[in-house]
């Protein structure tokens, strides 16, 4: 049975006929990665969340371009999966990244007490020495 093939163009891959739509590549993987990235918040101190989220975003980048070019060519469900997974990845990266930044900031402030940066203002002679002790972090 031939459906109407109005949208077909030569040399442009498969036709968008109903029932012959393709699954987007990586759509399921992006969804799973995005949702699992919230586990990174629980254990591994947010690092795992950032890694999984960025992996999800990278995997989602090519299919997003494919959607923008030919949205009619792919199945509805895979597009939805991809977009939901992308949102979840972004949130996972944001949560993990925000907490890592906060921890990094507190680490800088908290070396030898919460106001360790203040002595720099008092005696500028020791400024360079103290900066070097900070640097490894």
């Amino acid at each position, binding site marked *: 049975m031939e459906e109407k093939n109005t949208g077909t163009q030569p040399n442009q891959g498969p036709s968008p006929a109903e029932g012959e739509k393709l699954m987007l590549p990586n759509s399921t993987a992006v969804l799973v990665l995005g949702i699992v990235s919230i586990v990174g918040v629980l254990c591994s101190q947010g690092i795992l969340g950032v890694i999984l989220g960025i992996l999800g975003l990278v995997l989602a980048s090519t299919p997003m371009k494919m959607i923008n070019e030919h949205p009619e060519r792919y199945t509805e469900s895979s597009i939805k999966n991809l977009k939901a997974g992308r949102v*979840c990845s972004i949130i996972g990266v944001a949560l993990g990244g925000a907490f890592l930044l906060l921890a990094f900031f507190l*680490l800088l402030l908290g070396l030898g007490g919460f106001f360790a940066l203040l002595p720099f203002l008092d005696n500028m002679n020791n400024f360079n020495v103290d900066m070097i002790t900070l640097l490894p972090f």
Partner: protein
Amino acid sequence: MREQLIQWLEAHLQPCVYKQNLGIECLGCGFQRSLIALLKGNIWESILLYPGLLPMLVLFAFLILHLIFHFKKGAAILKYIFLTDAAIIVTNYIIQTIQ
């Protein structure tokens, strides 16, 4: 089986790196105690310890079901559960830190 799992978990509780070194709790603090409480059957205690755990378990269960059965609105539902869970975790963290 369940008692063994609970005993093993209680014997292998991981200390929080941030709480030890920086003096602040992390976003996941309370999760292990909450999981143990849930395994013991104390749902309310689990919610009090870490409110984000139960929605997260629902999220994963629904993710597996969605991957098997391909629900029509599964992706949207997953997204909203995820957003709700993230909001609960962040709110709980802010409240815990302020107190």
